[in-house]
C-alpha cells in the first residue's frame, strides 16, 4: 500500500541510505518510510546500525549515499541545528543532559527561542518560557525538582529530563534511542505511559531492545541486520518472520 503513496504523505522517507567507515558499511542501502503520527520501532541485534541510522537522520554522521527527506526537505545536506529547526528532535542512548545546570536551566536552554548569538544574549525568561518549562516539567514528573542540579538526578530521571528537553522543542519527529535502558520496572511503566502521552500528534522513531516495551508502543517495527532492513511490519508479523527468528535465535 505504501508504494502507491506519493512521497509527501510520509513525514520521513529514507531511501538508499548508505554510510561507509573506511570501507565498512554500517548502514547499507537502507530504505524505510514513516507516516504522519506513526510510532516506528527499530530493533535488531547489536551492531546492526540502528544508532547510526538516527545519527544519519539528525546529521551527526554524514551519509555516503542516499537520501533522507523530512517533510520534503533533504536532510543529508543540512547542518545539525538546521535539522533541529526543521522539527527533528533526538534523544541519545546515554542520558545527555547538562549536569552542571539545574533542571530548570536544562529545559530553558532547550526552549526553541533565542537560538542565535544575539538571541541568546538578549533572551528573557518571560512568562511564555516559564509556562512551557512548568508544563513540560509536570509531564516528565520533575516539577518539584526544577532547581535541582541535573547531575544529582537518578538515571531514570535523567532519561526523563532529556525527553523533556526534546518535548519543549515541540518536534514533529521525535527520535528516541533506548529510552528505557537502565530503568527500573516502575520507571519503565511510567516511561511507557509518558511516551504514549507525548507521541500523540507527532511521529516517533524508537530504538529499543525491551520487547515487551516494543509491543506496548509500536505501530510498526523495522528489524535491522548488518545495516539493512531484514523485515518490516506489525510486531505480530515481524515476530513470526523466519528471517528474524533466525537472526535472533540462530546465534
Amino acid at each position, binding site marked *: 500500500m505504501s508504494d502507491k503513496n506519493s512521497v509527501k504523505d510520509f513525514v520521513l522517507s529514507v531511501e538508499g541510505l548508505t554510510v561507509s567507515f573506511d570501507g565498512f558499511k554500517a548502514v547499507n542501502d537502507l530504505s524505510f518510510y514513516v507516516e504522519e503520527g506513526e510510532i516506528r520501532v527499530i530493533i535488531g541485534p547489536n551492531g546492526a546500525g540502528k544508532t547510526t541510522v538516527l545519527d544519519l537522520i539528525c546529521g551527526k554522521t554524514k551519509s555516503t549515499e542516499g537520501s533522507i527527506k523530512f517533510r520534503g526537505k533533504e536532510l543529508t545536506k543540512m547542518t545539525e541545528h538546521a535539522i533541529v529547526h526543521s522539527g527533528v528532535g533526538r534523544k541519545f542512548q546515554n542520558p545527555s543532559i547538562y549536569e552542571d545546570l539545574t533542571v530548570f536551566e536544562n529545559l530553558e536552554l532547550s526552549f526553541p527561542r533565542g537560538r542565535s548569538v544575539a538571541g*541568546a544574549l538578549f533572551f528573557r525568561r518571560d512568562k511564555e518560557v516559564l509556562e512551557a518549562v512548568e508544563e513540560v516539567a509536570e509531564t516528565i514528573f520533575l516539577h518539584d525538582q526544577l532547581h535541582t542540579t541535573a547531575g544529582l538526578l537518578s538515571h531514570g530521571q535523567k532519561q526523563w529530563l532529556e525527553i523533556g528537553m526534546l518535548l519543549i522543542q515541540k518536534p514533529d519527529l521525535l527520535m528516541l534511542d533506548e529510552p528505557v535502558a537502565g530503568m527500573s520496572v516502575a520507571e519503565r511503566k511510567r516511561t511507557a505511559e509518558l511516551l504514549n502521552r507525548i507521541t500523540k500528534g507527532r511521529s516517533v522513531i524508537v530504538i529499543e531492545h525491551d520487547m515487551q516495551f516494543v509491543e506496548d508502543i509500536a505501530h510498526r517495527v523495522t528489524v535491522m541486520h548488518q545495516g539493512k532492513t531484514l523485515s518490516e511490519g506489525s510486531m505480530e508479523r515481524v515476530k513470526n518472520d523466519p528471517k528474524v527468528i533466525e537472526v535472533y535465535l540462530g546465534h
Partner: protein
Amino acid sequence: MSLNTRSLKTSMHSIKTVFPKGDLFYLAVLALFLGVLLPMTLDIFRLNMVGKYLTYAFVAVGLVLCWGYGGILSLGQGVFFGLGGYCMAMFLKLESSDPESTKIQSTPGIPDFMDWNQITELPWFWEPFYSLPFTIIAIIAVPTIFAYIIAVAMFKRRVGGVYFAIITQAIASILTILIIGQQGYTGGVNGITDLRTLLGWDIRTDSAKYVLYYVNFVCLMACLLIAQFVRKSKLGRLLVAMRGREDRVRFSGYDVSSFKIFVFCLGAAFSAIGGAMFTLQVGFMSPSFVGIVPSIEMVIFCAVGGRLSIFGAVYGALLVNWAKTTFSESFPELWLFAMGALFIGVVMAFPSGLAGIYKSHVEPFILRSWQKLKQAKPQPPEPPTSVPEKAPPPKTTPQNAAQPHPIVLTGSISPVGK
C-alpha cells in the same frame, strides 16, 4: 503547586538582574580598590605599574569567558594583546616622527627604525594610522577580525580543546617571528619605542599617567560589565552547557560554532583594548608581549584568579604581576621557580584559583561573622550595597538574606527583552 510557582518567580526575578547574589558588591569592592584605594596610597610610579598589570586583566577576563566558561583554551591571547598594542603604537609613533623632529634622518618624516633599515617610504599599511579615529577602530577591529578568521576556520570544523590550544600557540609563534623578522616595518625585536605624545598631549608626564590610569580603569570596568552581562545571559549558560555536552546543545538547535566564535572574538577584543592601554601607559610595544611565553603567562593570570570568576581574573593578573616584579627585583633566579610552581600548584591544588579559595574559605567565615554580629546587635545595619525596593519575600533562605539584591542597577543595564 504554589510553592513551585514561587520558585519559578524567583528564577524569573534573578534573570532580570545581571548582578545577582552579591556580584554587584564584588564589583563595587573592586572599583573602590582600583579607583580609590590604590590611587590614594601609591605614588605615581607604582600606580603606573598597577595600570600596566591591569592591562593584562583585560586578557584574563576574556580568558574567563573563553576558557572558564566556553572551555576554549587559547594560548595565543598575546597575539590580540599585541595587535591592539601595535595599532596604538603605530599611531603614536607616526605622531612622534614628524618631519621636524626626524630631520636628521636620511628620510625625514618616517619612524626612525624604518630609516635605520633603509626604508625610504612609509609602507601603505602605516598610512591610515595618521588618523586617531581610524586607529581606535583598528585597535578593536584588527584583532577581532583576525580572531574571527581563526575561529571560523577552527570551530566550523569542530577543532577544539588541545588542538585549538596548539594551533593558537603556533599562531603566536608565527606572528612573533614575523614581527622580529620584518624589522623595517615593525621595529623588529625592540618593538616600537620612544612614543611621546597623543594629539600633542605628552603621555610621559605624571599627570598624564594619572589620567591614563583612570582611562584604563574605566575601560576595564566597562569590559567587566560586558563580561558579566554575557556570563549571566542565556549565552553564558549555553557556554557552560557546551563545555560538557556539545552534541546536546547542537541537537537543541544551536549552532555551537557561532557561540564559540563569538566568545573567542570577544576575548580577543578585550585583549586588544588591554594591549592599546599597555602601549599608552608604558610607552612602547614589542614582540615580547606577543609570543608563546607571554600568551601562556596570561592564562596563568586567569587561572590564579579563578577560571570561572571575572573579578578573580583581575585580582589574579594584579597578584601574579606584582609577585613577578617583586621577585625579579630581589631574587631574579627564583622567579622562574615560583612561576613554575604556580602553574603546577594552581592546576593541582587550586583549580578554581583565588575565587575558589574565597568561596570555600573566606565567604563562609564572613557569613558566620555576619550572623554573630547580627545576634550581638538587635538592629543590624543594612549591607552597604543592598538597596531593596520591594519588601523581601516572606520566606528567605539564610543565603538569600546575606546576599544583597541589587535591583537598582539592573534596570539601567539589562536590555529590554526581545
